[in-house]
């Protein structure tokens, strides 16, 4: 088990290192002069342009040799600084992200966990049950092939714009001051609901299909046939099949974390939900590159942590990893 975790942690540290390097390198590798782009918005005399250009170059440390810039980037990062946001000037990027991340987590955590649990349950029940399978399976295929942003648009249109059941945009009603009152909490909840349902439904489809297929596969395994021939009740056989089918599904969860985060980004944009995804759009619109770089690192760290959680759960669920029979796999 120690080797299992050592290997995982090594991968994660390496990933973090690569991510920070990409985060630093990509803006510098991009064609064009970022400062020229910044200054092109102002109409300047050539003489003042030269002065501003050199002063900005100094301010952003772009005159230094590359290796210096790289080390400085790490040093600032390790001190918890990601620069100053242009969009929310003069707030530091970390503050801006911290305000948004609460909303994203409130959306992502329940949507991911609940869709995973519900999808697995329904998929397991549907397997080898003709009538249920014929209804759940096509439905799940439709859901899993749906682009997040489109389901979000559809729900926003039908339930918010036409039926007025739910609010169409924002994280809470702008007529309310954030306080710990029932009215405010209710407002939070109604604004949260549709983005949550979007993320839940798309995720649900994939998990249901995966579990259904795995159960069918497991029920055909030797141990299942053996149990049946011993006269074990169907319930018991299915229970063992479910226990085994959980493992590949957990691996699948770790693999799809990136897709889920991507789905949250576009869903938040549709509902103007003030999380990280919505912040991405604001940063793009105001060309706030520091904020974009900060969000990238934040997402990476979040995904790494989530991966680690899945690893821990995997060890809890699969006894083989605990005694080291299955090291390095997964």
């Amino acid at each position, binding site marked *: 088990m120690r080797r299992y975790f050592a290997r995982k942690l090594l*991968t*994660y540290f*390496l*990933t973090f290192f*690569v991510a920070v390097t*990409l*985060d630093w390198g*990509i*803006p510098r590798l*991009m064609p*064009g002069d*970022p400062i020229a782009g910044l200054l092109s918005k102002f109409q300047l005399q050539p003489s003042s342009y030269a002065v501003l250009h050199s002063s900005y170059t100094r301010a952003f440390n772009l005159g230094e040799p590359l290796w210096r810039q790289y080390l400085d980037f790490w040093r600032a990062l390790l001190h918890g600084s990601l620069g100053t946001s242009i969009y929310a000037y003069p707030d530091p990027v970390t503050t801006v992200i911290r305000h948004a991340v609460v909303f994203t987590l409130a959306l992502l955590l329940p949507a991911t966990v609940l869709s995973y649990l519900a999808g697995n349950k329904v998929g397991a029940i549907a397997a080898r049950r*003709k*009538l249920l399978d*014929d209804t759940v399976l096509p439905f799940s*295929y*439709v859901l*899993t*092939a*749906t*682009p*997040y*942003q*489109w*389901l979000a*648009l*559809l729900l*926003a*249109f039908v339930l*918010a*714009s*036409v039926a007025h059941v739910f609010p*169409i945009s924002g994280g809470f009603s702008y007529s309310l001051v954030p306080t710990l009152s029932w009215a405010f909490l209710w407002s939070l909840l109604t604004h949260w609901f549709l983005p949550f349902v979007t993320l839940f439904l798309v995720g649900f489809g994939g998990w249901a299909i995966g579990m259904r297929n795995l159960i*069918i596969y497991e029920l*055909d395994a030797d141990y299942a046939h053996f149990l049946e021939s011993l006269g074990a009740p169907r319930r018991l056989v299915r229970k063992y099949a479910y226990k085994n089918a959980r493992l590949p599904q957990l691996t699948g969860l770790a*693999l799809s*974390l*990136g*897709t889920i*985060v*991507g789905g949250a*980004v*576009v869903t938040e*944009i*549709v509902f103007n939900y003030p999380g990280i995804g919505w912040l*991405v*759009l604001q*940063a*793009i619109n105001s*060309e706030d*590159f520091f904020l*974009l*770089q900060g*969000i*990238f690192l934040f*997402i*990476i760290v979040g*995904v*790494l942590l989530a*991966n680690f959680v899945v690893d821990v759960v995997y060890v809890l669920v699969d006894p083989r990893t605990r005694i080291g029979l299955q090291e390095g796999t997964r």
Partner: protein
Amino acid sequence: MSKDTTTTKDDTAAPTEEGNTAPRHELVYFALRNRKLVIGLSIVGLLGLAAIVAPFSARSNPDAFVGPPMQPPSSSYLLGTTYFGQDVYSQLVNGLRQSFLVGIMGGGIAFVVATAVGFTAGYRGGAVDEVLNMLTNVLLVIPTLALLIIVGGYLKGTSIVFEAMFVGATAWPWAARAIRAQTLSLVSRDFVGLARLSGVRSWRIVVGEVAPNMSSYLFLTFILLFGNAILISASYDFLGFGPPGGVSLGSMMNLAFAWNALQLHIWWWFVPPGVAIMGIVGGLYVTNVGLDEVFNPKLRSL
């Protein structure tokens, strides 16, 4: 429902008589009998056809202003017009084309990288495997869309070739890992050992002995990469990074959202592109499962 059950029963009864004699016919037989495969392929095929004939069936250049704005679907504007008075139908068929192109190119590039990495890692083993495996696992964790926001933030209005390359460069890790695992299990077989002993060159063993034994698996992997590429590029365009103008399915949704189609109830602007993407991707998934059942006799019995 009851009709379905009888047909599936026929499926399982018939092949036992004629199945063993002609394996190729058997595959075709099962392919035509497989409901999922037929349904999936027909959806993808129809949409593909619409994409191919797009230049002839579209009534106008997708960006041209052809009529009054915000017209609901009618006989003169099949799917209505946009906020600006562009023909939604023309945009849709044109967008389908772009989606298929990105899917084939992006999925293709990802497939080539995945097979190269997967085969090399699985066949070579040792230090090469360790390095490639680590690289795969690292890239696997970095979310594509997150990478996109730092790349896309700097590039405005990219081409679909760039989009396909980006998707190809980022979507391969899971496939490489799956192919590596399959290769590992094949490499330990006797026929590969025999080929090695008789001095056949490595790449010839991979191409001639290993790959054909997992050809169906490779094909299924490509189908999934194809579908994923379309979904990723739809998000990409929805964020506004796509080619300028309303020429792709993702940017149609982006423009509809940006110009308040929700509040103005112009549903015919954003519903068709989503249905089209769902059709292609869902069709591909169902095709994938159907093919799996055709290739793998174990799954047929259902």
